[in-house]
């Protein structure tokens, strides 16, 4: 038996990356609250800077607490290696900076977290990268949209906020035909509910701020590499497969093999742009992950109970939750998220914009804020908050029409959540 393939998910959620400290025996991962690490001698220092030995230089690049989190998430996703970042947005930046040259393009599902759409279509173009949005409901739409400059396809496994499930296996096949990787944002599903690498994805990103951390107390992101994409085959990724001028002519793929992408993301993108995760945040996220399977089961059960209540409520026009038979994503949800379709979904309140605003203000237990994946239940009216700057047509396309309310169902007693929503819905009448 060659190691970790013998251990189950719950065991790895607690133990992966976290052997007892060799010096002190500390059983939980110590918080290495340090910026830098003393070199043994000048030769070892040079070896560290050359990447010819493993070790710590400076916490912008690596930190022992953050490393433990990276290995744990790599293990849970079934991946080869991971690099953590200050936020999910930062992890996406590390992925694309490692893949793209100025002038390159990529395809992205149009059903994404709104912040990702803005990152891809407003800020990335200033770096010379063009994100092309595609309707993901037909996988063939991605093939039709491919251009010779496309270097990746990006989707969310379970889209925020609409509850749309993407056909990962079909989109991965289209990406691989084109010689490019499929990147999956697995934030809303978490690796307990969906593991994109098993369906052909090549890179996974997370906002660990959400379900992985799970307690609404720590910002963070992580980029995971499957270790199975051949970066040399298509000739489209010269900065990975040829001598890299940003690192003294090092060939990352040849030198580090199936974790060369992660090494380059760390040694170039993280080094030069600096969005590293804080050790304290890594510690809190590690602690959160230890209960991920238990929490996700309760998030799923509570969300489904709340969704069923809402679907039967006279003040509710529609509910979009892939766990409900009424959802167009129901069949894909059963395939890719067999343990349940997560804890975040949207519904439409009768009475439009004014009713939506009244509803969020009337809640006494659901917290009105812009986050998801907390132990606490959260509510948001996108049209009056996150999507306020868009016009009506843009809001509708983004799944943020005037009547749309987003819930992130927490771990409280389901009956209390239902009572809170019932009272608040009555206030919209």
């Amino acid at each position: 038996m060659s190691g970790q393939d013998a251990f189950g998910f719950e065991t790895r959620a607690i133990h992966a990356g976290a052997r007892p400290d060799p010096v002190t025996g500390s059983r939980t991962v110590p918080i290495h609250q340090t910026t830098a690490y003393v070199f043994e001698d000048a030769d070892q220092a040079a070896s560290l800077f050359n990447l010819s030995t493993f070790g710590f230089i400076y916490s912008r690049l690596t930190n022992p607490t953050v490393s433990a989190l990276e290995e744990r998430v790599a293990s849970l996703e079934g991946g080869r290696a991971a690099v953590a970042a200050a936020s999910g947005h930062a992890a996406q930046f590390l992925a694309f900076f490692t893949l793209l040259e100025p002038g390159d393009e990529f395809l992205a599902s149009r059903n994404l977290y709104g912040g990702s759409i803005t990152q891809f279509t407003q800020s990335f173009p200033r770096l010379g990268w063009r994100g092309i949005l595609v309707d993901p409901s037909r996988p063939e739409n991605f093939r039709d949209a491919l251009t010779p400059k496309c270097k990746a396809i990006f989707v969310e496994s379970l889209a925020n906020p609409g509850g749309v499930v993407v056909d990962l296996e079909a989109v991965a096949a289209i990406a691989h035909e084109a010689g490019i990787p499929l990147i999956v944002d697995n934030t809303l599903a978490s690796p307990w509910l969906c593991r994109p690498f098993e369906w052909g994805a090549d890179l996974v990103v997370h906002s660990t701020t959400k379900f992985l951390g799970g307690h609404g107390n720590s910002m963070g992101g992580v980029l995971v590499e499957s270790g199975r994409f051949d970066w040399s085959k298509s000739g489209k990724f010269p900065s990975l497969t040829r001598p890299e001028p940003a690192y003294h002519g090092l060939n990352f793929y040849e030198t580090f093999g199936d974790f060369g992408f992660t090494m380059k993301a760390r040694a170039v993108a993280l080094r030069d742009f600096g969005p590293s995760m804080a050790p304290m945040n890594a510690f809190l996220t590690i602690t959160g992950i230890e209960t991920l399977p238990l929490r996700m089961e309760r998030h799923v059960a509570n969300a489904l109970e709340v969704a069923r209540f809402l679907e039967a409520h006279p003040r509710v026009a529609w509910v979009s939750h892939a766990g409900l038979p009424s959802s167009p994503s129901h069949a894909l949800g059963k395939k890719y998220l067999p343990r349940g379709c997560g804890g975040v979904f949207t519904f439409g309140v009768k009475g439009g914009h004014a009713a939506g605003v009244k509803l969020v203000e009337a809640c006494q237990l659901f917290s009105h804020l812009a986050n998801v994946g907390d132990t606490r239940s959260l509510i948001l009216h996108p049209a009056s908050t996150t999507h306020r700057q868009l016009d009506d047509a843009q809001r509708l396309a983004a799944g943020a029409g005037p009547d749309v309310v987003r819930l992130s169902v927490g771990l409280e007693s389901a009956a209390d959540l239902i009572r809170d929503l019932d009272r608040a819905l009555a206030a919209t009448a």
Partner: protein
Amino acid sequence: MLGEGPLFPRRWTVQDDLDYADGDLRRILGSAKVVAMVGASPKWNRPSHFVMKYLQAKGFRVIPVNPQNAGETILGETVHASLADVPVPVDVVDVFRNSEAAGPITDEAIAVKAKVVWLQLTVRNDAAAARAAAAGLQVVMNRCMKIEYGRLFGELGWAGVNTGIISSKRLKVNR
């Protein structure tokens, strides 16, 4: 159930169909003293140079073998033209050449009575491996000595790499 997607990874470390038991690799890397590195490069940014320097720091004697640089010195060691020219007994022959070239090198390793033939990442020659195994040598293919050493002795995880190792015991530093 999860874990049944068509691409469910059977292995959590290097993604190929070669399965080397951690215990076997740990024994090789924990007991070998002399490594003959075929294809060792004098250029500091080549993978072979990385591995040689790393293994030296871990206490191995690494003897470079490379006909193009015979007689020169790499990291303090004289370069030999062939395995037959190496003046001391060799525990591991570590091969930084392509898969085809690894065939005759494996035969030389058998001839000099090496204990292990280790073919680096992307290098694989199943016929040569069968000959070496028949001659009583251990064979490792498509693995990096530095990466596997780091993985088994607690350093690879520092780079965020999935080592596949779960243990409630304090790590013992081996060398």
